[in-house]
């Protein structure tokens, strides 16, 4: 049973609240909030903004899924950032070096990406399971280390090539690229969207229909109860961390295989952190994450349009921040209200009056 009120009310409240708060910020900075919101809405109908928003959202969606897998097991994988960048550079190097027939080439690159992402998550996973080291600490440290690794690997002395002033990996041959979906003047949609949707469905199926997903959720909610039910928390932590890392490995793939074909020193960073916010916003639900990713990408793109009418682009950042904060608060409020309502409902069950203590009401 999906409780629509519980699922949809909090994000709606959060968005309204964020709009109010950013209106205040807009008024203080001397701008007209209505004009700002109108510009943000209208941007979707100009040029290729809509498609580029979706393209960006695909990337955020993958990062959000990666974070959500960890959240299910109560693992806070801040390392999505490091894992995706490590996977991107390794996959770009291997992909540039490999010569394979079209479809196989793509598959090989994706496999390498997933494996490298998982590999980069392996160390924090092992440290957490066997030594009790918090994954938050280890993954944050690995996030900074990845910067050095990327710089080292794409140095011309190793695997890099110098294009003008920019260092990057070697270009991936056309056989290793994922063709885009051309939408005429609106732009070209990443072909990776198909894989992202499939991954979202796979994630839903895993959580709700497989034994593994059940064990993951159970262990995430209560390690002790899961242990009594025969689920090893260590195994689940390890699995959640590795799957999270593996999915994180795909984050850079839409851009790498659909647009850039090389991984450069200048490639965009920060997708991993966005993924955490998006997963939070979408409450770890595949559809919710998609919504969160789209919203986030939309706000990112808004920054540009706002600037063009002379409004500080930071307004978009303020909205993102307030949305995340208020969505967390709103979910908690609605959750408590629902629990209380449910307890009353339980109380009414049976004979239409509160059960007395002796009849099973208990204290």
């Amino acid at each position, binding site marked *: 049973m999906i409780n629509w009120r519980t699922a949809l009310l909090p994000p709606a409240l959060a968005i309204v609240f964020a709009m109010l708060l950013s209106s205040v910020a807009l008024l203080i900075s001397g701008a007209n909030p209505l004009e700002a919101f109108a510009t943000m809405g209208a941007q979707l109908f100009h040029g290729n903004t809509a498609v580029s928003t979706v393209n960006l959202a695909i990337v955020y969606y993958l990062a959000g899924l990666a974070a959500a897998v960890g959240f299910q097991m109560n693992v806070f994988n801040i390392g999505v950032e490091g894992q995706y960048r490590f996977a991107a550079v390794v996959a770009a190097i291997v992909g540039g070096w490999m010569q394979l027939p079209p479809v196989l080439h793509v598959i090989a690159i994706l496999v390498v990406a997933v494996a490298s992402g998982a590999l980069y998550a392996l160390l924090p996973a092992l440290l957490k399971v066997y030594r009790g080291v918090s994954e938050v600490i280890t993954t944050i440290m690995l996030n900074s280390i990845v910067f050095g690794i990327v710089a080292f690997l794409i140095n011309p002395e190793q695997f890099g090539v110098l294009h003008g002033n920019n260092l990057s990996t070697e270009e991936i041959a056309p056989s290793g690229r994922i063709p885009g979906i051309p939408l005429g003047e609106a732009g070209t949609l990443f072909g990776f969207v198909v894989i992202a949707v499939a991954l979202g469905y796979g994630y839903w199926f895993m959580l709700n229909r497989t034994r593994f997903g059940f064990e993951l959720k159970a262990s995430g909610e209560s390690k002790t109860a*899961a242990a009594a039910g025969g689920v090893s928390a260590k195994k689940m932590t390890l699995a959640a961390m590795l799957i999270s890392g593996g999915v994180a490995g795909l984050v850079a793939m839409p851009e790498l295989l659909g647009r850039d074909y090389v991984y450069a020193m200048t490639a965009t960073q920060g997708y991993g952190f966005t993924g955490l916010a998006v997963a939070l916003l979408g409450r770890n639900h595949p559809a919710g994450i998609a919504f969160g990713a789209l919203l986030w990408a939309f706000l990112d793109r808004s920054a540009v349009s706002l600037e063009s009418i002379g409004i500080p682009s930071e307004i978009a950042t303020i909205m993102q921040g307030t949305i995340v904060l208020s969505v967390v608060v709103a979910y908690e409020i609605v959750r408590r209200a629902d629990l209380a309502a449910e307890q009353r409902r339980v109380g009414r069950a049976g004979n239409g009056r509160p059960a007395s*203590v002796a009849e099973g009401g208990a204290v």
Partner: protein
Amino acid sequence: MTEPEPVVELTGITKRFPGVVANSDVHLTVRAGEVHAVCGENGAGKSTLMKILYGMQQPDEGTISVGGEVVELRNPQDAIKAGIGMVHQHFMLADNLTVRENVLLGAEGLYGMGRKARAKLAELSDRTGLHVDPDTLVENLGVADRQRVEIVKVLFRGARIVILDEPTAVLVPQEVDALFETVRSMQADGYTFLFISHKLDEVRAIADEVTVIRRGTTVGTVDPKEVTSRQLAEMMVGSELPSPETRESTVTDRPVLRVSELRLDADDGDRSVLDDVSLTVRAGEIVGIAGVEGNGQTELVETVMGMRKASAGTVELASSGGELRDITRLGTLARREAGIGYIAEDRHRHGLLLRQPLWSNRILGYQTREPVSSGRLINPAAARQDTERVVEEYDVRTPGVEVLAGALSGGNQQKLIVGRELSGEPVLLIAAHPTRGVDVGAQALIWEQMRAARHNGLAVLLVSADLDELIGLSDTIRVMLRGRLVSEADPATVTPTELGSAMTGAGEEAA
């Protein structure tokens, strides 16, 4: 009228929780200088009533008067100001502080922290029989002394009326006697006690008056010298006295569980939590494990369940063919699949996923088995359907199977667990405190189901702190002390008192 003035009067107290009336129209009158016992079954509403008197919860209806004046107790501070103190069943002491620091903590304003406070502490320690150096760390004290520290703490804050919530639950009989002596001498000094208990013998030994609570309401107040334990018990549970007794023996000679020389070392150091434990449970037999809590029962259960790894020894379980199979190396899931059902002692920690719906909880522990799972894939529809069956058969009071497990009351949660654990066609049921903290109705149902399952050849390993339950249900009782099975008792002849002394090692020394 020569009777002393009532110091505490509760009139018409009613307290509702969502869906539950915990107290309804409770009347209680306590006179100065008496020991007033409040008796009732688990879940009858004693604790709620005491929480109301101590200001931890506010009544929906009714009044509280202390010393003749109506007071409103919004929090424990108000209660302390009114002269009411409470010694909780679970001590609220900081182990890493000294006795003096524990007593003074938060009450520095009364006597300062210097000589005056020391003198007061010495006086109160003397009065309560706490003969320890006030600079000893609390972690070095035994249970009985800790309890006295709690009493001193309460008195230090000026309490004249002391609530003792199940004070004897953690004590061995000798310590109970010592506590009672202290209570009597303090009573002579003019203190008033409210004594919460469900142990009738103790109530009859110490109380001047007894108020019985049943199903959240006061049934009556009696003089313990004029009633028998039997009469008191009947007041507590109503006319029909549910009895856990199993009549005819269904014990077969087919062993289902055989534990041999099981040892479990503590995580720290070289102590053994379990030492040389051997026991056999046969089909149709209930083997009860008696013991004061913390003597290894929890560890025994968790080792048999595979949640802890045995340091030595073997655990064997009968397979479907009947011959015993070594399961020492198997994990918890494999052991469950081999036919062990498990009712954990702490249902919130080990039994349920509180934030998941009931049907999801039906899957827990059975995620590899029909009907709820096909091995790798979960079948939510079948899980819902089977949960509805459990709800129906085990009388779980709920509006549906989509309700979160955390929204159910303790008794209904436990019925759901019992229903789940008996659904997987187990050959062995491990039941740890199966009726702890559940209401009388649920208790009767759980006993009934366990008896029925035993009749059908189920082997049961029962751990319980409720001696009546142990004696009533078990075919054999083994006594556990400091990680060892020290003696055996025949439930047909043993009395709770004898069992109690065996549990504390008194019997061992005599032998």
